[in-house]
């Protein structure tokens, strides 16, 4: 080793140590936020927050199926009891605590703050008489006993009014004393975790707790002695109890473990395949290990760069990063196979460097992406490739043993050359293929790209169906249309919610909206509550009005004493606050609909369609438009997420085209001759075109990950095309067979690696695999076919010794 080599190895080792230090201290996250945008519009920002860390993200829906209703109810009670004792859970509801009774009590106690009917007229003589007569009519009905029990303390019927107001939130069905699905097939529980849904580690712990508690219950709990005899026969025949979990946190836990499992399984498999291939070629473990040094160094540097640049490393970056810099596995192959008897840095290096530069141009287009995951992948790939190329150039040669015992692949290359020489009309074929593919793509132009963000979701469709089912059973709103309120304070948010509610009442009456939910229904603004309490007359006034109002009615003397006392007490009572709601199911409802985030208060008003109808969002928008648009916005979640995704896709396409333009510019500068640039670019474009057309024909809708795959195809394929270009420019064809052989080996390793990914059940992985594996294979094929015919036409020259 000369002094420069010592310096290079020294710098490399130092760099590795620094990178390892950074990697060890880096923060890692595996949540789904890699798929969520960084800087969308404010509304989309809200949506993303709501999805990733809003109160709804902390809900875990638990279903218990199997056995019989009594057995499920026992398990539900035992599970709820166990979970309530755990500090990780804020609330665990299963219906057994008769939340309805508490809610009804709450409605009665606070009827004058909550009832929308409370106005000054309502407590005037005419208002009182009308209300009391209506209540008496009610008492003469089958519902009479209900009205009767309230008559003395609430003759104006405010409690029923409040119950009606609150019953907008559907209650789950009860079976054997606990919540049940509507079809009665499973018991339902609802758990709210203390940790945010974005905290996947905490969610994983919560899910683990639920599972282990359930296992303990089902394995150790003795059968209830009372029912054993009656149900023994039935339960021994029935299916055992099964646990079903759903919710945003559960999904992220599932997604993470699926991605981790698949990434591990698939990368092990592809590594095994590639290592086997390389061992066959290198015939030396030592050389194989040397060959892996550039990739390993690049991977380490890539993670370190992401940790420095973003502060936090996404799991997805770790998973994909290695495959994206898979190109760098090729560098040592070129070095080992082609460098026999040739000067590496004089001849090979410029081609490899140019190939790496084109790849960097391609990956640089990911850097400005709004997808944090994609931006990280861009940085990872660029830094990884730079380091891998540098290690191949400066570190690997001095470390290699003097004589490499690798197999001589020149015969393989010679064979390939002879085969290529037989192809007669490659150019005409290429033109025809281009036209055909263009036709296919033109035909599919409207459904080429998927508009559905869910296409990227690693959550299987079956889990989503179960979630929708359990949500419907629990009466949890399906939040496809929302009115979103933003304000500086809780009270302002509630006042805007009341203003929006006033407009929505009109839309409900007009049949545009079926119903809606609002936090102000459970917790009216202080101003509204104060106005209601102020509408209550003082004791003397109320007595006088009551006497006048009940003239001629068969009311027993003194019957309304409780009413008079309670109104007097209520006038002194202050407004209810969030704390007053504690212990009722209304607290949970308010938590889900009203919260503070980043110094802003948000209120949500989910809209429900009338049965079997879609909401005319435009009419809702028009109706609410005259309120302050800065505070009140109508949101169609589906539209928004789709617009969000379409936005990403458009941006990614634009950036990819920019990246492509940069590649062309780079090649023009490096190769100087237009025809050489065309010769390098054409096979890559054709490969991408054919793969895209084939995917379209197969009915696959393209996602953003397919686009990345195309980018990667161009990045890897550019190396192939550049080697052919260099060979053509060199006019010395003695090295051609080895060049061909090295390209074939490099391509085989890439194809093997990505082919494995194509079989993954995770959509992002399979999209990448099914694009890159055929893409790179075709890129090599087309690069060879479109290379000057003179390369292959000459008879194989005698091989140098």
């Amino acid at each position, binding site marked *: 080793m000369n002094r420069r080599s010592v310096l290079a190895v020294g710098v490399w080792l130092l760099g590795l140590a620094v990178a390892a230090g950074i990697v060890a201290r880096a923060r890692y996250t595996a949540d789904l936020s890699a798929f969520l945008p960084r800087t969308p519009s404010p509304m989309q920002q809200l949506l993303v927050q709501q999805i990733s860390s809003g109160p709804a993200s902390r809900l875990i829906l638990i279903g218990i199926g199997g056995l019989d209703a009594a057995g499920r109810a026992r398990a539900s009670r035992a599970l709820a009891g166990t979970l309530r004792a755990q500090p990780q859970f804020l609330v665990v509801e299963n219906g057994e605590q008769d939340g309805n009774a508490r809610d009804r009590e709450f409605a009665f106690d606070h009827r004058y703050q909550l009832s929308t009917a409370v106005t000054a007229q309502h407590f005037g003589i005419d208002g009182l008489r009308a209300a009391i007569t209506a209540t008496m009519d009610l008492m003469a009905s*089958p519902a009479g006993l209900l009205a009767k029990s*309230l008559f003395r303390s609430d003759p104006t019927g405010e409690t029923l009014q409040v119950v009606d107001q609150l019953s907008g939130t559907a*209650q789950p069905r009860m079976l054997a004393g606990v919540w049940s699905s509507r079809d009665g097939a499973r018991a339902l529980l609802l758990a709210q975790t203390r940790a945010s849904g974005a905290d996947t580690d905490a969610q994983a712990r919560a899910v683990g707790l639920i599972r282990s508690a359930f296992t303990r219950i089902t394995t150790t709990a003795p059968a209830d002695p009372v029912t054993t005899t009656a149900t023994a026969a039935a339960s021994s025949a029935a299916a055992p109890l099964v646990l079903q979990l759903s919710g945003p946190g559960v999904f992220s836990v599932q997604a993470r473990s699926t991605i981790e499992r698949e990434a591990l399984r698939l990368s092990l498999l592809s590594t095994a395949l590639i290592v086997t291939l390389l061992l066959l070629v290198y015939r030396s473990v030592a050389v194989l290990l040397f060959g892996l040094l550039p990739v390993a160094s690049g991977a380490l540097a890539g993670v370190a760069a992401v940790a420095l640049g973003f502060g936090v490393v996404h799991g997805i970056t770790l998973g994909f990063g290695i495959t994206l810099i898979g190109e760098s596995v090729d560098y040592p192959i070129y070095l080992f196979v082609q460098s026999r008897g040739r000067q590496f840095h004089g001849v090979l290096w410029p081609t490899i460097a140019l190939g790496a530069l084109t790849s960097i141009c391609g990956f640089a287009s990911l850097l400005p992406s709004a997808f944090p995951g994609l931006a990280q992948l861009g940085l990872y790939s660029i830094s990884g490739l730079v380091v891998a190329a540098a290690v191949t150039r400066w570190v690997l040669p001095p470390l290699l043993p003097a004589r490499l015992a690798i197999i001589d692949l020149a015969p393989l290359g010679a064979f390939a050359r002879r085969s290529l020489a037989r192809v007669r009309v490659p150019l005409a074929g290429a033109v025809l293929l281009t036209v055909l593919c263009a036709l296919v793509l033109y035909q599919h132009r409207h459904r080429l790209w998927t508009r559905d963000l869910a296409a990227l979701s690693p959550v299987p469709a079956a889990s989503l169906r179960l979630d929708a089912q359990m949500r419907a059973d629990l009466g949890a709103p399906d939040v496809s249309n929302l009115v979103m309120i933003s304000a500086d304070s809780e009270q302002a948010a509630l006042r805007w919610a009341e203003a929006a509610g006033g407009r929505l009442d009109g839309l409900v009456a007009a049949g545009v909206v079926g119903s809606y939910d609002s936090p102000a229904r459970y917790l009216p603004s202080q101003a509204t509550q104060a106005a209601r309490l102020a509408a209550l007359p003082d004791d003397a006034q109320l007595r006088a009005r009551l006497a006048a109002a009940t003239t001629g009615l068969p009311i027993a003397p003194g019957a309304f004493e409780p009413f008079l006392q309670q109104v007097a007490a209520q006038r002194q009572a202050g407004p209810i606050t969030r704390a007053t709601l504690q212990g009722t199911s209304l607290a949970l409802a308010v938590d889900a609909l009203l919260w503070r985030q980043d110094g802003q208060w948000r209120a949500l008003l989910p809209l429900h369609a009338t049965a079997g109808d879609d909401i005319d969002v435009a009419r809702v928008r028009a109706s609410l438009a005259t309120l302050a648009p800065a505070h009140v916005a109508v949101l169609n979640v589906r539209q928004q997420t789709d617009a969000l995704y379409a936005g990403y896709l458009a941006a990614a396409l634009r950036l990819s085209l920019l990246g492509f333009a940069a590649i062309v510019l780079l090649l023009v500068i490096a190769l100087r001759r237009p025809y050489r640039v065309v010769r390098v670019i054409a096979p890559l474009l054709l490969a991408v075109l054919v793969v895209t057309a084939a995917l379209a024909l197969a009915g696959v809708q393209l996602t953003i990950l397919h686009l990345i795959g195309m980018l990667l195809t161009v990045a890897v394929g550019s190396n192939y095309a550049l080697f052919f270009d260099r060979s053509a420019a060199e006019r010395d064809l003695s090295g051609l067979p080895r060049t061909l052989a090295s390209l074939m080996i490099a391509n085989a390793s890439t194809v093997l690696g990505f082919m494995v990914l194509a079989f993954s059940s995770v959509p992002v992985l399979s999209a990448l695999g099914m694009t890159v594996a055929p893409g790179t294979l075709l890129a090599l094929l087309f690069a060879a076919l479109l290379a000057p015919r003179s390369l292959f036409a000459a008879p194989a020259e005698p091989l140098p010794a």
Partner: protein
Amino acid sequence: MSRAWQRTATLWAAAACAALLLAAGARAADAPPAALDQLMALLAQQRHAEADFDERQYLAVLTRPLISSGVLIYDAPSHLEQRTLRPRRQTMVLDHGTLTMQIGRRRRSVPLADYPQLAPLIDSIRATLAGDRAALEQRFELQLHGTLEHWQLRLTPREPQLSAGVSDIVIDGAQAQISEVRVRQSDGDHSVLQIRPRP
């Protein structure tokens, strides 16, 4: 408040019992001594019945009784409907465990099972419908007086928490025909429901 709901349902239980018994009226039996099993068997066979009703409620808060009238409809095994026509149109339907009240355009539905203290009471209706004397006796003390010509069935709640303010329910029948259902409450209020099968 929940007590109020329970009372409502109690009345319902009474009304339901009445309807069931009234249903039996369509199938008049001969006149051997009144046996509970015979009565139950008759009830179990009935599929559909309709009757007019008049109800008087004597309440401490009012100086005059509240009077209402309307139609009772029963369909075996789990549908019962009370349509009040006077003083105001309102309907109450018990169907497969869901209690629905409709007054004007406003509808309220509550699952009966939301009221655990009430569920057994209402389940007793199902038990009666099925002619399931054992299940009925699990909830109530049953006393049958008289003959099938002229009988009186008294239901006394066995469990205090399930009585929900009801002291007892007394049903009068002539042969298999119900004429009256009286519900007494522990606070002294009481109601009388008179039933006439529709011609």
